């Protein structure tokens, strides 16, 4: 599947902002199941400095500064992405989770497996939390194949947690999410990651988009899509498998990956510190538009800055 994604983030300030420093992770990563054919980042007002680099996890980061006084900041990311997987995947057979655990933690495992170990450790937003254990014991029954157990977990979170925008904020700790059994996709991904890590398994956070379909018979509304989050778990020898607890599905072609990290803190799409402004009003619009399978344009050659071009208006 091929998609065009337009992701606009707009901040309005009641007072003048004299200076801002930002880092955005809005450029979709390239990986085995995904190609990024085009990426344009448009910033308004015009930045005084833009830098692009790849972070530890292989994601693209764009850092910029705006020195000019402004009352409005608009960040528009336009990308074209090819997803190499299609349809509804079937759950691949996998060894029992205990075997996977043993493989990951073996001292003589291969480099990729050893690298996955990092994702079995606590991270800033997903610390070890006793309340995770009951959930973990419910799905990680003895001898259960890893992927089957993780699918059970995905379903379990979907069924027992309420999707409730506004119920949590960025600073809501995992423990409270577990207690109130409500949250949004970031929280559900964190819960799943926490459960997997409590069993010594590797799990990572994925920030991205999901193509949504309008209710039957209705046209799709502009800006009705949203950024999304889910998680992946590692199966030695096979790689990472994605699961979306918000929708109780295994990740497929309609999930578009922006960036991966240990948790949300590694991959916030937009992050910044502004000087002045007093406060801000935020509006976000995301459009994920499926394109015809054939390429309408030749993908640009790979360039050191990730093929990104910076437009300012």
């Amino acid at each position, binding site marked *: 599947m091929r998609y065009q994604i337009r992701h606009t*983030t707009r*901040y309005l300030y009641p007072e003048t902002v*004299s*200076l*801002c*420093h*930002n*880092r955005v992770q809005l450029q979709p990563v390239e990986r085995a199941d995904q190609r990024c054919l085009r990426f344009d980042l448009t910033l308004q007002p015009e930045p*005084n*400095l833009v*830098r692009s*680099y*790849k*972070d*530890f*996890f292989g994601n693209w980061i764009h*850092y910029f*500064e705006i*020195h000019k006084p402004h009352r409005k*900041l608009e960040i528009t990311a336009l990308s074209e992405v090819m997803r190499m997987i299609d349809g509804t995947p079937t759950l691949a057979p996998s060894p029992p989770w205990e075997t996977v655990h043993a493989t990951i933690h073996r*001292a*003589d495992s291969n*480099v990729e497996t*050893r*690298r996955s*170990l*990092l994702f079995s*450790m*606590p991270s*800033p937003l997903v610390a*070890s939390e006793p309340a995770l254990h009951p959930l973990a014991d419910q799905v990680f029954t003895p001898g259960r194949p890893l992927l089957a157990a993780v699918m059970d977990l995905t379903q379990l979170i979907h069924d027992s947690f309420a999707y409730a*925008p506004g119920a*949590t*904020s*960025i600073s809501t700790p995992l423990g409270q999410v577990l207690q109130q059994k409500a949250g*949004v*996709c*970031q929280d559900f991904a964190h819960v799943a990651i926490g459960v997997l890590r409590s069993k010594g398994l590797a799990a990572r956070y994925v920030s991205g988009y999901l193509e949504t379909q309008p209710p039957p018979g209705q046209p799709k509304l502009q800006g009705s899509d*949203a*950024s*999304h*989050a889910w998680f992946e778990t590692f199966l030695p020898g096979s790689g990472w498998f994605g699961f979306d607890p918000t929708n109780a599905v295994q990740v497929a072609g309609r999930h578009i990956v922006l960036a991966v990290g240990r948790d949300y803190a*590694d991959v*916030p*799409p*937009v*992050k*910044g*510190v*502004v*000087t*002045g*402004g*007093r*406060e*801000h009003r*935020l509006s*976000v619009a995301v459009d994920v538009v499926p394109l015809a399978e054939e390429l309408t344009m030749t993908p640009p050659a790979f360039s050191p800055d990730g093929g990104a071009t910076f437009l300012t208006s």
Partner: protein
Amino acid sequence: MTVFSAQVPSGYDEAFAAPGEPRGHWRSFLDHLYSGGPERPGRLWDQTLHLLRESGAVYSGATAGSTQRRPWAFDPIPMILHHAEWQRLEVGLMQRHHLFTLLLRDLYGIQRVISEGIIPSELVFGHGDFLFPLWGRPTRKLTLPLYAADLVRLADGRFQVVSDRTQAPSGHGYALQNRRLTHRLFPDRATFGPIQPLQPFYRSMRTGLMRLAPHAAQNAHIVLMTPGPANETHYEHTFLAHAMGLTLAQGNDMTVRGGRLCLRTLHGLLPVDVILRRVDEAWCDPLELNEDSLLGVVGMVQAAREGYTAMANPLGSGILENLGLHPFLPALCRFFLGENLLLENPKTLWLGAETSRNQVMESWHHDPFPWSILPLQPDLALPVNGLSVDESLRRQILENPSRFIARPRIHPSMIPGVDAQGMCQRHLLYRAFLHHDGNTSYVMPGGLARVSPPEKGRHAGMPDHGYPFSPRQGGSTKDVWVMDDRDHPEVATPVQSQDSIPPVGLPSRVAENLFWIGRYAERSEGIIRLFREATTLMEEDEIGLSREQRRHCRHRLLSTLTHFTGTYPGFAGEDARLQWANPDQELRSVMLDANRTGSLAFSLQALINGGFSLRDRLSSDTWLILDNISTHLGRWQRQRMDDMNHLLWDLGPLLQGLMAFAGLTWENMHRDLGWMFLDLGRRLERAMFLAQLMETCLGKGDSQTNEIAMLERLLALNDGLESFRFHFQTRLEVESVLAKLLQDDTDPRSLVFQLTLMERHAHQAPRSPGQTLYRTPLGRTVFESLAAIRLADAPALAQTNPASGQRENLLQLTQRIRNLLPMFSETASDNYFRHADATHHLFTART
């Protein structure tokens, strides 16, 4: 002599090879100490306390509402290290430093140590001290400009490293401070043998820091980044900045523009070439590191990526302090250097490894428990032998074993010392320092010795003895002498020209602090003068005035006090009459209550805290005066004051202190922009004082006898009574007194005198090119005030309106001045002190 010997034969004694048998390199020093007779230790201790007070050295932060500061803990008996021993340490420290540099490059680069299984990845990634945003910098040039190690000496005389300081090594300032103290305490030290001087190390450290500057070969701008005066080692930062000629700056004195770290100065943004970082790395950048930090600079991580600013030490170097690395250091040393580790650690077990964990947990109930348990991140407040071993620790370990290490309990060596009770024995922890200039490493021939509280009649090595060294737990410090026992003549060190110190703009925060120091000093003086005058007037017959005259003057002065301090309603409210009749309670509060904004205690405290935060900019004499004021204030506040006369008596030293402060800043401070802002603050405050005084005391006419008494008191209040009589030789008239106090250019306490100086200062204040003084808000305000005063006609000012009984011309003038002057203060703030606007974080939507 046996009193000096070690009490425990098993531990190493630094000074004695056997009871009564001093080691060679200690002999001449100990001979000197004994030759002073039995009073010598007591005298030495008294001298030490005196010097410490004089130096103003402290180990504590400034806290709001308190001027109490913990003096620096110092034991005058030095640690003496044999030169040959020090050379062995030097080699070992250089090797460790080299090893850590290579490890740092590897961890923030290709991570071979993890992919090849030399160290477990959990040690790196599992404990929050690997800074992911710092990964991926070009690592080839990554260095550790500063390194320090905490060492203990074992029973067999070998040193071992108990912890490494790599992220923001501290103690350089205190080590230098200690050396200055021993220089004063032992003026005849040359007779002990050649003590290696420290000065060359600090000089080369400064040159080394300059060399790190990536883009400025000469005159690199070096900034010492401090968390600020609330930090307990802030004194050290100010001392070091002063001694090494560095600009001291806090995070909000700096900003990142175009990926480049800059200092906000009165002259605009000045690029910073090198940062000597004393802020812990996690707190350095609220954008990419700890979001809650108020100590950092937004974008500092990006500045690290860009590489315009060298950081000593680089962000990310904290991970090398992880104690869990200790078991792997020998292997790492072979891996990177192909060598054996020369300077070892105590045998350490990382409890994240199952076999190690089992070994430790199996002996948990042994008595004595042979292990000390420590968290991975070294904690300076923790005793050498770590956490107290109890059930809660056991549970923590079982829950999170990989967060802990275990090592055999350590019994540090003994060293003689002195405290208030005389000679004593203490345990020793030695911090050695190294700096690296990009090519070469230099080890300080000395260091910072930290010692435990004295062992008094107890035997060392008691089972539960953890050996605390922190000053909070009674620990102290010593100078470290590296000395030969061979006798050779002292080699004079050649006089080297000082490194040229580049001109550096005045940080805006510093200018603002100086401005306020000037204002608070002057305000305190004004309050004391008013109080003194008003209180004197309560006494009968003291100054030959009638009861009615005294009553009149007292009321006017008390009202002025309220207006000037802004402590309303006070003596200016509706029940003023009541308060005038019984002023004691209100007066006490206006003077002593530090929690009351505007009170004398409040102003003095603001002055002292301001001075403390600018310790690096004040001479030690100036600081001493502030410190004395602080001591007096503390004593004064602790006393119960029922008698106004007592209060008056005790004000004497405070007023003298303030005048000494005024004298020193006038006589001894460089006439730079900093001084200018300080004096600007002082002049502004004095001008406000005069305008208020004239307005409240003379604004309303009164009987002639009352007015004459008032005029006399006004002159006395401004030290002008005698000179007035001398110069004018007339009787007191409102007109001539107004002319003197408002318009006399030769009277340093007149209003016109203050405004003239302010105009001169405003001339010097930086302004944009092409802008004239009278186009700047600052220039315009001061010019307008000055013109108004100069053009005023004294006889007209003195006239009262028969209908209202008020001197309307005078009131108009003083009110105009009192409106203009605060604007002067505000324009100064807007133009020069706008250093740190409030910031907030941007996030994205949650879906």
